[in-house]
């Protein structure tokens, strides 16, 4: 049996990392789960958010956390524009969703190339001192570079959940997700609602990007590492359920770390995705799907 402090630290590390991944997946849950838009570029937008925070930090000495005040609204506006293009070029014409997928693939690669042209391929990082500080709680280590993204991601999910459940606009967006035609019959404009929801989705990506910069150095192609995990979390959580997204992400984080201890880290992705398949076999709509 592994020592207690190794197990306890593994569970805490899984919680912290899983919590952060929930923040990364929150926007994908909205676009993929609620709006039926296969925004495969979501992790790339998270990386753009990290670079935006890096620029504000390097050029204007703004702390990455404070930079979220600029990054999040900017990404909301960018989301409105991206959705408008997507709607005009694909959704409006009822084109095959695969073409929309190609659009987002294209955005991802073009974005990556633009980042390379603008910043080169070197790793970029935050110089905030707290990123190198580790708190100790007895034998449990809490590196701030992991704790802050965990807490920040939690805040992102709570804010998004409150927006969707407690505001008129949020409930209207949930209505679009449930029945597009009924919303139209009630006099609402589903395209406008989806545009706003997609804006929120990218705003969440921007916020997650700020947290990513605190968690680890970034380079233009780092978003590729997240694609599988982000969509696995969105599906496991229940396609559109933000609490489900958090629980799914944390479960995967903890399972991966425990697998690492008992069987070796190389088994962790296989066990995680095996868990995903098993869950979907029992509950095809995911943990919290309807």
């Amino acid at each position, binding site marked *: 049996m*592994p*020592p207690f*402090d*190794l197990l306890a*630290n*593994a569970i805490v*590390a*899984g919680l912290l*990392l899983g919590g952060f991944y929930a923040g990364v997946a929150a926007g994908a849950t909205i676009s993929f789960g609620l709006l039926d838009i296969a925004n495969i570029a979501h992790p790339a937008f998270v990386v753009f958010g990290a670079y935006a925070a890096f620029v504000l930090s390097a050029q204007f000495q703004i702390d990455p956390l404070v930079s979220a005040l600029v990054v999040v609204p900017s990404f909301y506006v960018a989301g409105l524009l991206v959705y408008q293009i997507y709607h005009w070029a694909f959704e409006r014409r009822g084109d095959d969703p695969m073409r929309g997928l190609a659009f987002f693939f294209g955005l991802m690669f073009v974005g*990556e*190339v633009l980042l*390379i042209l603008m*910043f*080169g*391929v*070197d*790793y970029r*990082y935050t*110089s905030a001192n707290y990123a*190198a500080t*580790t708190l100790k709680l007895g034998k449990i*280590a809490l*590196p701030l*570079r*992991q704790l802050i993204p965990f807490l920040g991601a939690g805040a992102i999910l709570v804010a998004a959940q409150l927006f969707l459940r407690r505001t008129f606009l949020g409930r209207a967006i949930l209505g679009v997700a449930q029945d597009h035609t009924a919303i139209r019959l009630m006099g609402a404009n589903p395209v406008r609602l989806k545009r706003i929801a997609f804006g929120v989705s990218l705003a969440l990506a921007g916020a997650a990007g700020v947290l990513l910069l605190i968690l*680890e*150095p970034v*380079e*233009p*192609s*780092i978003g590729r*590492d997240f694609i599988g995990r982000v969509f696995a979390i969105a599906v496991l959580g229940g396609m559109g359920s933000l609490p489900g997204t958090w629980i799914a992400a944390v479960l995967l984080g903890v399972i991966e*770390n425990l697998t*690492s*201890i008992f069987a*070796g*880290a*190389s088994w*962790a*992705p296989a066990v995680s995705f095996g868990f995903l398949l098993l869950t979907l076999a029992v509950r095809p709509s995911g943990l919290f799907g309807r």
Partner: protein
Amino acid sequence: MKSRMGAFAHVASRTMAAVAAATLLASSAWAADPIKIGFSMAQSGPLAGSGKSALLAMKIWAEDENAKGGLLGRPVKLIYYDDQSNPANVPPIYTKLIDVDKVDLIVSGYATPIIAAALPIAMQHDMVLMGLFGLANNAKLKYDKYFGVAPIGEDPIAGVAAPFFGAADTLNPKPATVAVITPDIQFGHAVLEGVRGAAKTRGLKVVYDRTFPPSMTDFSTLVREVQAAHPDLVMIGTQPGQTINVARAIAEVGLDARLIGGGMTGLQTTDTETILGPQINGLVNFAYWLPAPKLQFPGSMAFVSKYQARAKGEGVDPIGYYVAPFAYADLQMLSEAVEATKSLEGDKLAEYLHKHTLHTIVGDVDYGPGGEWAKPRQFLIQFQNVKSKDPSQFMGTDHLVVVAPPDLKSGDLVTPFSKARP
């Protein structure tokens, strides 16, 4: 009639002059046809940091070569495409280079997986392939026209761990246990094999040797597992992004051992060094070249000056001690064979490369029968007294102390690891 004949003669002479001029132009155009050297190089993706550095070095070589009058009296032209650090992109790139661009010579892109994907194409076309920083690429294929450009030696599996264990052999008392941290990819398995072999030879017990998936980013649990095994030595063989995350996890967990590091790719580049700053102290790592007095060869410092003058403007690694000198040497060796044999044929070039000592900015090179350097020349450095994230600390050898082998040593190894930490 006379005037008509005169007019005819005039036209004929002008026509002949025009034909002669055209022939001359054509022949001079043929003489000026460039020798095309084709390759893929990572300009995006995780290998791009070193790929861009290598490309700049190769451009400098082409400029130097053309300034000297070119190769076989013909200008040199580099034709390259971004492989995006993805081996799957490599075969179509080389097929295009050979079939469409009609290149005369090929060299590889940067690192083991990219070379592995290019090697079958070179074999299919019977062309010489210079492999830039590959690990054991030719160990099983035994292709007689493959030439590795890294000072690892003819037994690359043993070579990968040799500098680390060379330093471990100097420890007193002798270490008894070793742990390995390495990814589940070809490179990682070579590291693993190298460590197991070295451990067996020395009677060391391997107490941790589980690999990790290449996409892994959080290493705190894995480093704790290693800590729980209490090894004397921790050999780490990682790729650039992993190197940063493993080094951070070591600092956060507080891992200690008598020797930690060894095969951390990326620690040779300025961006990784500055990201880690003081967290880099105590780590030991392999190195192939540094501007240490015993490693300065004809042309090496002139190249480094030229490279550093351009690197910042081109957005590549500003110091360039790692892959850049070898990327330049890569083309130096190939061009030396071309000039000596007056040929672009694979057979002749390979024969020359196998039989002669080649003169490069990273020293003289002799190839063994397996296409790797006959005499390995890796060494181990330890990061010492790094105070901040200022990149200038990583220029020169003040903070990059050569600790093994003894004939290249520039300072003493600080051990255990914790003693070298701030």
